C-alpha cells in the first residue's frame, strides 16, 4: 500500500493552528505518510510536527466554508486546526483518520525513521537476559537460565530465556506451563540480595471448577522456599473474581495443595475497567466549565486515584513480605501480563535502589514489561479520547508510571531521573519514532525484526545530550528500602500528565530552573573552593614550614 493513496490533499495553505497557552500560528498544513506538519514558513515560529500515530481521534466542525478539525492526541493534548475550504477540510480529516489507524505494524513510523544522530550504544543490545542472569549468579547459585521456551512454544508471551529454580528441569517446566494461563509458569522476577528472598510471577493456575492440580507447579514454586519457611501468593484479584475465574478454567492455588503458601487477595481492577477510568479522568481534567464540586466528584468517579492507591498498596505488600517478613512471594492475576507486572515492577522500585537509577529503571522496563510480555501494542493502541468500544486498550503502563511518580514525589532525592523521564516514557509507549514499544511480546518483536529495522528508544535516550533533561538534580543515591505512604491524603493527581496541556507551566519551569541553578551553583563553588584549597596547600609546601603569626 502506498501512503499517497491515503493522502487526498497533501497540502493546504492558510490553516490556523490553535493550542492552549500558545499563540495561534497561521501557515501551511502538510500531510506526509507519518506526520501532520504545520509550518508558518517564517523564522522564529515553531513548526508543529505531529505523528499520525499520536492521534487518538478527531472531530470535524463547519461554519460556512471554514472547517475546523479538533485533533485529540494520545499524549492527551488537544489542538485545533481551522482549514479554509470544506473539501480540503474533509479530505484532510479522512486522511488523518486513515493514517492514524494503520493496521499493519510494519507501516509504522519506526520502520521508516532514520536517526539523525549516530547510534553509539545500541539500545537493543543493552538489556539482555544473559547479563541480568550474570548478576544473579554472583549472588546465588540456586537458579538457572532455561531455554525451554527458545522457540516460544511453551509460552508465546515469554522470552526465550527464563530464570527458574536450579532443581526444576525443563520437562517439569513444560508441565507447569500447561497448568498456567497462557503457559506463563512461575519464573523469577526479583532476587532480594539482603535476605535471599525472591519474587516470582506467573499467570493464574488452571484449576477450573473441579480443582485440578499440578505436582510440577507445586514443586516448582516450593523450590523457591527455604526449608521450613513459608511464602506468600499475592493474587491481584479479589477472591470473588478469582472464584469466578474457575468457571472459565482459571482459578487460584488451593491451600490444600500449596500448604506452604499463604494466599492474599487484593483488588486491582481489570484492564478494561482501567480504560474507562482514564477516559473519565481526562474528560474531567479538560472540562473548563465545572464547579469545584463537580471536579472532585468526577475525579472520584474516574476511580483513577483509587487504582493508583490499590496498585501501590499491593506492591508495598509484596515488598513488605519480602523485606520485612523474610518470605518469598509469588504474584499473579489472571493473565499475568498486566496487574502482575505493575506489582512486581513497583515492588522492585521500593526494594532495589538500582531500579531508581536511569539505567536500572530502563532495565526494569525491559525485564518486567517488554520481555515479560506486556502487550504494549494492544494496550496502547488508543488512549483517553478513543470513541469506539475499547478492544484491549488499557492504561496499565501509564498507571505504573503514575505510581512511580507518586513514589518519586515522596522520595524526591532518591531517584536519578525526574518527572520528565516518566512523561517521556508515557509518550513513547503510545506513539514513537522508536521501535521499543512495538509488538506485544519478545516473539512478535523478533518476527518484526525490530532490532534490525528500527532504532531503540534507549539508543536515543541514553545519549548524554538527551539524558541531561531527565536527570533529577536532587538525586543522592539512597540504598535503603523506601516505603511510600498510600493514604489518599498522600496521593496526588499527576498534573504533569493529566493537566499538562491545561496549564501554563511557566511558574513551575521557573521553579525547576531555580532548583537546578541552586544546586549547580553549589557544585561550582565546591569545585572552586577545593581547587583554591589545593593551590594554597601547594604554596604552603613550596614556602616551607608554616609559622603561625
Amino acid at each position, binding site marked *: 500500500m502506498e501512503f499517497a493513496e491515503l493522502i487526498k490533499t497533501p497540502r493546504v495553505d492558510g490553516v490556523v493552528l490553535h493550542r492552549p497557552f500558545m499563540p495561534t500560528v497561521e501557515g501551511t498544513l502538510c500531510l506526509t505518510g507519518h506526520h501532520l506538519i504545520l509550518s508558518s514558513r517564517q523564522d522564529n515560529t515553531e513548526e508543529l510536527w505531529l505523528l499520525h500515530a499520536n492521534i487518538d481521534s478527531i472531530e470535524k466542525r463547519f461554519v460556512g466554508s471554514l472547517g475546523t478539525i479538533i485533533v485529540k492526541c494520545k499524549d492527551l493534548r488537544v489542538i485545533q486546526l481551522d482549514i479554509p475550504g470544506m473539501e480540503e477540510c474533509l479530505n484532510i480529516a479522512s486522511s488523518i483518520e486513515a493514517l492514524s489507524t494503520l493496521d499493519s505494524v510494519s507501516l509504522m513510523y519506526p520502520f521508516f525513521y532514520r536517526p539523525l544522530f549516530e547510534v553509539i550504544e545500541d539500545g537493543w543490545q543493552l538489556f539482555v537476559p544473559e547479563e541480568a542472569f550474570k548478576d544473579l549468579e554472583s549472588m546465588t547459585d540456586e537458579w538457572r537460565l532455561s531455554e525451554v521456551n527458545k522457540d516460544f512454544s511453551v509460552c508465546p508471551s515469554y522470552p526465550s530465556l527464563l530464570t527458574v529454580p536450579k532443581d526444576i528441569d525443563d520437562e517439569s517446566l513444560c508441565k507447569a506451563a500447561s497448568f498456567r494461563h497462557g503457559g506463563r509458569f512461575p519464573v523469577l522476577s526479583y532476587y532480594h540480595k539482603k535476605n535471599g528472598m525472591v519474587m516470582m510471577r506467573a499467570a493464574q493456575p488452571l484449576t477450573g471448577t473441579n480443582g485440578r492440580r499440578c505436582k510440577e507447579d507445586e514443586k516448582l514454586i516450593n523450590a523457591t522456599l527455604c526449608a521450613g519457611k513459608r511464602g506468600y501468593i499475592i493474587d491481584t484479584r479479589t477472591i470473588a473474581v478469582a472464584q469466578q475465574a474457575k468457571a472459565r478454567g482459571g482459578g487460584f492455588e488451593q491451600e490444600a495443595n500449596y500448604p506452604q503458601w499463604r494466599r492474599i487477595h487484593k483488588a486491582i481492577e481489570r484492564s478494561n475497567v482501567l480504560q474507562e477510568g482514564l477516559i473519565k479522568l481526562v474528560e474531567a481534567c479538560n472540562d473548563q466549565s465545572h464547579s469545584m*464540586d463537580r471536579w472532585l466528584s468526577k475525579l472520584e468517579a474516574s476511580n483513577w486515584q483509587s487504582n493508583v492507591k490499590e496498585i501501590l498498596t499491593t506492591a508495598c505488600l509484596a515488598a513488605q513480605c519480602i523485606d520485612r517478613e523474610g518470605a518469598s512471594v509469588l504474584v499473579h492475576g489472571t493473565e499475568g501480563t498486566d496487574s502482575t507486572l505493575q506489582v512486581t515492577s513497583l515492588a522492585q522500585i521500593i526494594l532495589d535502589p538500582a531500579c531508581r537509577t536511569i539505567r536500572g529503571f530502563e532495565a526494569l522496563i525491559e525485564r518486567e514489561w517488554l520481555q515479560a510480555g506486556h502487550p504494549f501494542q494492544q494496550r496502547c493502541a488508543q488512549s483517553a479520547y478513543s470513541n469506539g468500544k475499547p478492544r484491549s486498550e488499557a492504561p496499565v503502563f501509564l498507571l505504573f508510571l503514575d505510581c512511580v511518580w507518586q513514589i518519586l514525589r515522596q522520595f524526591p532525592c532518591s531517584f536519578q531521573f525526574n518527572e520528565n523521564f516518566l512523561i517521556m516514557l508515557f509518550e513513547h509507549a503510545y506513539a514513537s519514532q522508536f521501535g521499543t514499544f512495538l509488538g506485544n511480546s519478545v516473539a512478535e518483536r523478533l518476527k518484526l525484526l525490530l532490532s534490525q529495522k528500527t532504532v531503540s528508544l534507549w539508543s536515543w535516550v541514553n545519549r548524554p545530550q538527551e539524558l541531561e533533561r531527565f536527570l533529577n538534580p536532587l538525586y543522592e543515591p539512597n540504598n535503603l528500602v523506601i516505603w511510600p505512604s498510600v493514604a489518599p491524603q498522600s496521593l496526588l493527581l499527576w498534573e504533569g500528565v493529566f493537566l499538562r496541556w491545561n496549564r501554563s507551566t511557566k511558574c513551575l519551569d521557573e521553579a525547576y530552573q531555580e532548583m537546578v541553578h541552586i544546586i549547580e551553583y553549589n557544585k561550582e563553588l565546591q569545585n572552586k573552593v577545593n581547587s583554591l584549597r589545593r593551590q594554597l596547600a601547594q604554596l604552603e609546601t613550596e614556602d616551607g614550614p608554616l609559622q603561625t603569626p
Partner: protein
Amino acid sequence: MYHDTKKYFCTLMSCTEVWWSEMEHIRMPKVENVRLVDRSSSRRTQVGTLYLTATHTIFVGKGSEDRSELWVLHSLVCDVLKHKASQNGYPLIIHCKNFQVIQFIIPQESDWHNVYISLSRLSRPEKYEELYCFSFNPNVDKAEREHSWDFLDLKAEYSRMGLPNKLWHVTAINREYRVCDTYPADLFVPKSVTLPVIIGSSKFRSRGRFPTLSYYCKENHATICRSSQPLSGFSARCLEDEQMLQAIMKSNPGSRFMYVVDTRPKLNAMANRAAGKGYENEDNYCNIKFQFIGIENIHVMRNSQQKLIEVSALRSPSMGEFLMGLENSDWLRHIKSIMEAGIFISKAVAEEGVSVLVHCSDGWDRTAQVCSVASVLLDPYYRTLKGLMVLIEKDWVSFGHKFSHRCGHLDGEAKEVSPVIDQFLECVWQLMEQFPCYFEYNEKFLISIHNHVYSCHYGNFICNSQKERKDLCIKEKTHSIWPHLWENKLDFMNPLFKPDQSQNQGLLRPRTAPYCFKYWRRLYNRFDRELHPRQSELDCLMTVKEETQQLEEALALYEQKLAVLDKERAKTLYMQKGVLESKQALWSSPLDTSLANTPQDYIGGFIGGAPNVFTLQQGERESAELCLFGDKPKSSDADNSDQESGVADFSSHSSGEESLPSEDSVKDPDSDETGPNRA
C-alpha cells in the same frame, strides 16, 4: 530531658499567681502507666506518665533510653472526649486547634474521670488572665519585651505605601476609640472629608465601622478601602456616607468611578435589609459600581472546616471516602470564592486603576480575608516574611478581627468560632503552590503563624480589638510573636524565592480552575508524619543554600589569602584549616530514615495478626514502638539494620523536624512541638 521538665515546673511555680488559681482545677496532677496511642497504627503505643500542669498536659514516656515527651498547651485543646472503655483501659481523646489528635488510655476509671474533668476545665479558660501568654516568661528583660512590640510599625507600613500624601491623611478622630471601638486609633481617610462627614458616615455603618483605607497603590493612586455594611434598610440614605464614598473616589484622580464590593451572597445581604442593614443603593451614590461576591458566613465556614477536619482525620480511608468527604465539606469551594474575590479587587486596582470599597456585614471577617488576599496578589512586599507579618498586623489585628471569639480563646459562644484566618492563610498557601518562586517564606511560616494564632502563647492574637488589648495591657504583660518568628527566619525561607525577578514585582494572576485548589495536607495532617513525603525538597534545598553561603565565605577567604600570598610569597601563611572539609552527599540527609524504613499497614493487620502463620518477631514489635514518634531508635533493632548502608546523618537540617524548628526554647516548651524530639 526529664530534668528540663523539672526545671519548667520550677519556673512556673515561682513566677505566677495564675499557677495557683489554675491548680484548683487540677484534680489529678499525675497519672502513671498511661498509654499514648499512635494514631497511624493503634497497635503502637507508648507507656508513660501523664502530668497536668497549669498550662500544659505533659506525657513523659517510660522508655529506658529515649525518654520522649509530649507537651500540649491547654489553650490549644479544643475538645476532650471520653471514648468507650475497653479491657485495655479508659481512652481519652484530645482534639487540638492545630489539628493534632492525641489518644491516651488511662488504666483507672477514677483517674480517667478526674483527668477528663480537669482538662475540660483547663482548656476552657474563663478569663484572659488564665491564658498562657500571661504566664509565659522567657528569659528576657523588660526593655527587650517592650522592644519586641515595636518590631512592627504600622506607621512605617503606611509610609511604605506612600502615605500620608496630598490626598490621604491620618485622622485623629478615633484616638480614644469613641467613634468606633473595634477600629484602630489611627485611620487613613481622604483629606477632603471633614470630621462631621466621618461621624455621619460611621453612624450609618454597622458598629460605626466607616469606610477607611486598607491599601494604597502608589503607582496609580487606587485604594482598597474597607467598612461594614451600611444601615440602609429598604430606603434609608446618609448624605455623609455618600460624601465619604465620593471623597474616596475623588482621591483617585485618574478614575471616574469606584467599585463597592459586598462579599456576601446577595441573598444574605438582602435579608439584612429587613434588620435595617443591607447594602449600597447604586442610585444614591454617585459613580459607584456595586458588586456581590458570594462568600458564605462564619457559620457555614465553621461547619465546612469541621467536615474537612473529620475527613483529614479518617484512619485509612478509601480514596473514594476521602475525595467525597473533601467535596462534601465544600471547603475548597469556599477557598476558591475568597480567592476569586481577592482577584477581582486586585485586578480592579492594578489593571483598571479603580478604587474599591469592600465590606461584608461587620467588616471584620470576610472583609479582612478579601482585603488581605488582594494585597498579597497586588504587592510583592506581602510575599516577604516581614510583609506578611505586617499585613496580618494591619488587616487583621489592628482592624479588629475578633481573634478571641473566632479562635475560641475563652470559654464562650461556640457560634462565634470560625476559621476565618485559617482561610486567609490557606489562600496564601494555594498561591504559593501556583507561584513557587514568588514568595520569600515557605509553608512552615504559615503553619507556625496558624499555630500561634490559636496557641495564646504570645499576646498578639488575644482579644477582639485594639482597644481591648490596650485595656488589658497586653503589651505590658505579654510578649510579641513577630520578633520570635523573625529570629527563626532561616527556617521559614523559601529557597526558590527570586526577589530580583521582574515578573515577581507585579500582580499575581492565579488560575482558579477547580483543580488548582488543593488539599493542604501539611496543615490538616500536620501531626500525621507518616502521610508526608519522606524526603523534603524544601529541606534539601535549604541545606544546599546554607552550605552555598558557607562556601562563598570560604571562597572569599581563600581568595584573599591567595592574593596576600601572591604579593608576599615568602611571608608566612596563615591558614585556617578545616573551614570546609570537602563534603560529599551534602543534601541528601532530609530523609527520615526511620520512617522510610517503616512500612505502613498495607493490609490492615493481616500480616502479623494471623495466629497460624507469621507474626512479627518480638524485636520488630518493639522497634515499631520505638518509632512511635518517628525518631531514630537508638538501640539496635530491626529498623536500624536497614541503615547499614543508608543515608548518613549530615546537616543540622536533617530529619526529625516535623515540629517547627523555631519553637526552640527548652525552658518554655511550645505547643508546636510533638515534644518528644526535643533535647
